[in-house]
């Protein structure tokens, strides 16, 4: 009873709180990083260097009036933010933050696929939000979101197949352990897959340069145009939770998760003083920073260009990557 119910529940509670708090601070970090890129200061008023902004922002969002448009589809309008947030949080269930069993909720044998399938559910939040608002810009946004998700999910899934081929397992813990056994981070032997997954991650989390469903300069905010207050902040949470989980998964799959650099080089054994979860958090931070850096730098792609890249570039490369990985696997 204790092992099957209480401990996992405790873990889940701790994890959820950690995610929610880290999201608020990630928003602050994003504002600071982008401000730094744009030669300005960012939030400075609340607390020293604006640190407390992370706490004030959610409070403000919660206290705001929650408006439902008169002609909106009430049921779906309320359901959509939840549909968008829940998968993002559920996806954390299979993310191991360390090799010890203490650090993850569940290590199921189809962990990677579970992650993919759960994140693919998240798009319903966006699509239904756009449709339920009964407004034209959100509708366009949900059309864009559905088309975008389909094309990039295929590419990402196919790319991950080559990682699975290399590691021989679908379990997240197993993949990291395979990297330890192979003595190399898969980012180095699957560089193409890494780049593809990064691009796909940008597209699946609707981030610049693929932020078409919420392009505020085109669609006035896209699918969350009609949302306000708490519901809006749920979308916000979902987006950032998604970014964190995708960063974590990328770090696990390609950068050895909680492993130190060159895990099988004995000379670097002194690095083991640093616990594994700090390594992982450091890597996640790097990816988060990458997301923000890209957001500050790049313009936005156009819808048709996005589809073209997805179908004509990413999917063929992913297919070729699978074939090459397979051949190498057979030969070696």
């Amino acid at each position, binding site marked *: 009873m204790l092992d099957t119910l209480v401990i996992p529940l405790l873990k889940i509670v701790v994890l959820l709180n950690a995610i929610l708090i880290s999201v608020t601070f990630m928003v602050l970090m994003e504002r600071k990083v982008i401000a730094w890129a744009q030669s300005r200061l960012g939030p400075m008023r609340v607390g020293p260097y604006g640190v407390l902004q992370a706490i004030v922002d959610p409070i403000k969002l919660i206290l705001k009036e929650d408006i439902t448009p008169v002609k909106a589809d009430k049921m779906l309008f309320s359901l959509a933010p939840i549909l968008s947030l829940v998968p993002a949080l559920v996806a954390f269930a299979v993310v191991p933050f360390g090799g010890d069993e203490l650090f993850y909720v569940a290590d*199921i044998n*189809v962990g990677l*696929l*579970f992650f993919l*399938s759960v994140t*693919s*559910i998240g798009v*319903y939040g966006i699509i239904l939000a756009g*449709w339920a608002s009964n407004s034209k810009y959100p509708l366009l946004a949900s059309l864009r979101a559905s088309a975008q998700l*389909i094309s990039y999910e295929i590419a990402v899934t196919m790319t991950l197949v080559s990682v699975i081929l290399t590691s021989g397992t679908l379990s997240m813990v197993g993949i990291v352990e395979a990297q330890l056994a192979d003595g190399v981070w898969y980012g180095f032997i699957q560089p193409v897959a890494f780049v593809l997954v990064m691009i796909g991650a940008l597209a699946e989390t609707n981030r610049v340069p693929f932020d078409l469903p919420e392009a505020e300069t085109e669609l006035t905010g896209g699918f969350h145009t009609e949302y306000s207050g708490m519901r809006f902040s749920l979308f916000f949470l979902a987006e950032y939770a998604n970014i964190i989980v995708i960063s974590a998964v990328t770090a696990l799959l390609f950068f050895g998760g909680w492993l130190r650099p060159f895990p099988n080089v004995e000379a670097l054994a002194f690095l083991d003083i640093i616990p594994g979860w700090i390594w992982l958090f450091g890597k996640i931070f790097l990816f988060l920073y990458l997301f923000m850096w890209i957001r500050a730098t790049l313009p936005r792609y156009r819808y048709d260009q996005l589809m073209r890249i997805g179908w004509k570039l990413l999917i063929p490369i992913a297919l070729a990557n699978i074939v090459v990985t397979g051949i190498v696997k057979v030969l070696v």
Partner: protein
Amino acid sequence: MAEALAFYTLSILILGLGVAVITTPKTVHSVVFLVLNFLCVAALYVVLQAEFLAVIQILVYAGGIVVLYLFVVMLVNLKRQPEEHQDPRRLAKVGLVLSGAVLVELAAIVVYSYGREPSSVSAPSPAFPVQGNIEELGWLLYTDYLIPFEVASVLLLVAMVGAIILARREL
């Protein structure tokens, strides 16, 4: 006990959602019910310890195909009331035939499955030199069911080519 409870709960949910899919007046609502239905089916697979199938069910059906449904439903103007048919009973006849066919099929399945001994695929045996859900599935697909598998993939390829030709009017 717990498994049986889960099974029956899920079955009721699946049936109820299925009814909801065809009775809801709004198309988008029925698509949402369909998604929930698929999720329940996936949960049923988990109960049956077919995790791989469950995850694929979500990934392909809930995450992929139904998204396309929604895409089409939102693109196409379905606000108009469906036209009245000239012969109101014509649909009834077709429905009768179809439901009869489904009934026969169900009966066949029941008869067929009762006539066989329950097979045990979970224990490692000489027929399955590998262990684990996915591995077993892969083994079966590429040994016993290789030809149906390849035929199915060729069929899908044909469908894909056909769709492309239909979509591109000038080729």
